[in-house]
């Protein structure tokens, strides 16, 4: 399927990447295909080692895929970068020292064909109060905000954020995402990798879940939650085999954790009635709306297609 090039935002087609490690080759990414429409905000989720950062690196042209292709607004990563269409906040990093924040942003702006005005960037990233501060005197959270300003300065069509809120406290994280949302509201495409599920839930239109180098789910966060059942029932119920509970109506999956059981349900009302009828000893019952977390653990624990043998 070939999308009209003018309509295409981000297209990753069948990306593969294998690294050499001292213990032999590691297949970090094994056939990732994702399409993102212009204006969409997409979260890239997955545990450590899922291949998120490798995928982001290939998307940005920092590493070359062994196989497959990246197209950004119909261009190669290098051409899209040269045109100033891409802004990114990479996973690790600080900023160079011996400059004031405003000077750093001005310096970076000078590299692009059509940058945003420096004052607008400072205001958008909410770093105006830091404008005259030296970069080496910023705290961790402040540094992240300045790096965000640097990512915005080219007025990019695509903003890529690789775990941007690591090291931020809860309040800073919240206000950070509000600034991302402000920028996305200008019709920009945003892709962010994170392992904070609530961030994906709250700020993304769509989530792409990766595990062991493949995409295991690609849907709206609501749909992903629905995939593993809408609610969970937790209760204390020793000595009852899980198979017996799996037969209950409305139950999609059973986990036993010591004396406790966790039932993922498609219909929790039917399930709780049947559970109480069949197992009168059950106690400490809790019924919860399933979070993205449950979905995440479930989906990344058994990837849709089993991983091929990976040499380690």
């Amino acid at each position: 399927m070939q999308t009209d090039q003018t309509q295409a935002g981000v297209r990753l087609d069948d990306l593969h990447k294998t690294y050499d490690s001292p213990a032999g080759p590691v297949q970090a990414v094994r056939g990732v295909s994702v399409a993102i429409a212009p204006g969409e905000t997409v979260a890239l989720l997955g545990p450590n080692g899922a291949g998120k950062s490798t995928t982001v690196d290939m998307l940005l042209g920092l590493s070359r895929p062994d196989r497959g292709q990246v197209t950004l607004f119909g261009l190669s990563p290098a051409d899209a970068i040269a045109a100033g269409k891409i802004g990114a906040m990479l996973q690790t990093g600080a900023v160079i020292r011996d400059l004031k924040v405003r000077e750093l942003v001005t310096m970076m702006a000078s590299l692009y064909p059509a940058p945003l005005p420096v004052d607008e960037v400072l205001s958008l990233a909410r770093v105006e109060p830091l404008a005259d501060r030296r970069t080496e005197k910023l705290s961790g959270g402040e540094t992240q905000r300045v790096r965000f300003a640097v990512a915005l300065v080219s007025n990019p069509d695509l903003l890529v954020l690789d775990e941007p809120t690591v090291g931020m406290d809860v309040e800073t994280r919240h206000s950070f995402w509000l600034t991302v949302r402000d920028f996305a509201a200008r019709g920009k495409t945003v892709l962010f990798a994170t392992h904070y599920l609530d961030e994906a839930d709250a700020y993304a239109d769509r989530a792409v879940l990766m595990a062991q180098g493949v995409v295991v789910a690609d849907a709206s966060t609501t749909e992903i939650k629905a995939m593993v059942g809408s609610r969970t029932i937790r209760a204390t119920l020793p000595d009852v085999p899980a198979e017996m509970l799996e037969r209950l109506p409305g139950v999609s999956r059973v986990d036993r954790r010591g004396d406790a059981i966790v039932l993922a349900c498609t219909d929790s009302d039917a399930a709780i009635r049947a559970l109480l009828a069949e197992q009168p000893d059950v106690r400490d019952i809790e019924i919860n709306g399933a979070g993205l977390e449950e979905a995440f653990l479930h989906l990344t624990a058994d990837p849709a297609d089993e991983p091929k043998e990976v040499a380690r």
Partner: protein
Amino acid sequence: MNAATYARYELLRTFRNRRFFLFAWGFPVVLFFLIAGPNRNEHDFASSGLDAPLYYMVALSAFGTMNAVLSTGARIAGERSVGWNRQLRLTPLSPRSYFRVKVLTAYLTAATTMALLFAAGAALGVSIPAGSWLEMTGLILVGLIPFAGLGILMGHLLTPDSIGPAMGGTTALLAFLGGVWYPITGGVMHTIAQALPSYWLVQAGHVGVGGHAWGRTGWLVVAAWSIGAALVAARAYRRDTQRV
């Protein structure tokens, strides 16, 4: 893209780092007075054909500028360690412009160091024709090309932890064998020295007394080191896209 603005801020950052300048300027000047001062009346110093103040003025200019240019590498290593290098790859800044600005900064630092040393030399009675000052400056600037390449190479190969000792060792060795501390005028050491770019930096002093500083060997050695260092530096930069 406005390369001039980028270069201006890169220079501003360099010249703002006071500690860097304390060492880049202070050390060579202090060493010059300590070494050349007591020998200020020596003519044909250690059969080098030069007066001691002239010899050491050029030798310590070589040392100071060599340090200034090599330390570009330390700055690159520092930028890499905070991921700045990868950030720059996400901008339209070409590797060519990146290196141009780095080398420009290194050269301006070197030029200020040299100016200070020349002033210190004049204070100890070095007096040579204006044309010779210029020629000497030119030769030193050309002779620094291999060091710019080596600095960039080390900056991309090493981490901030290892670059200190690596650079200290390299400068110490090249300075010693190049005759910065004492002229090397004969024997096997002289043969080895002639193959090093630092030796020819020090030899630039000979234009001060109307002699030929480099000759064919000198130009060949400097050219070979320049090309070699530029090639390996470019290679190191291209390979260095990984996270560190």
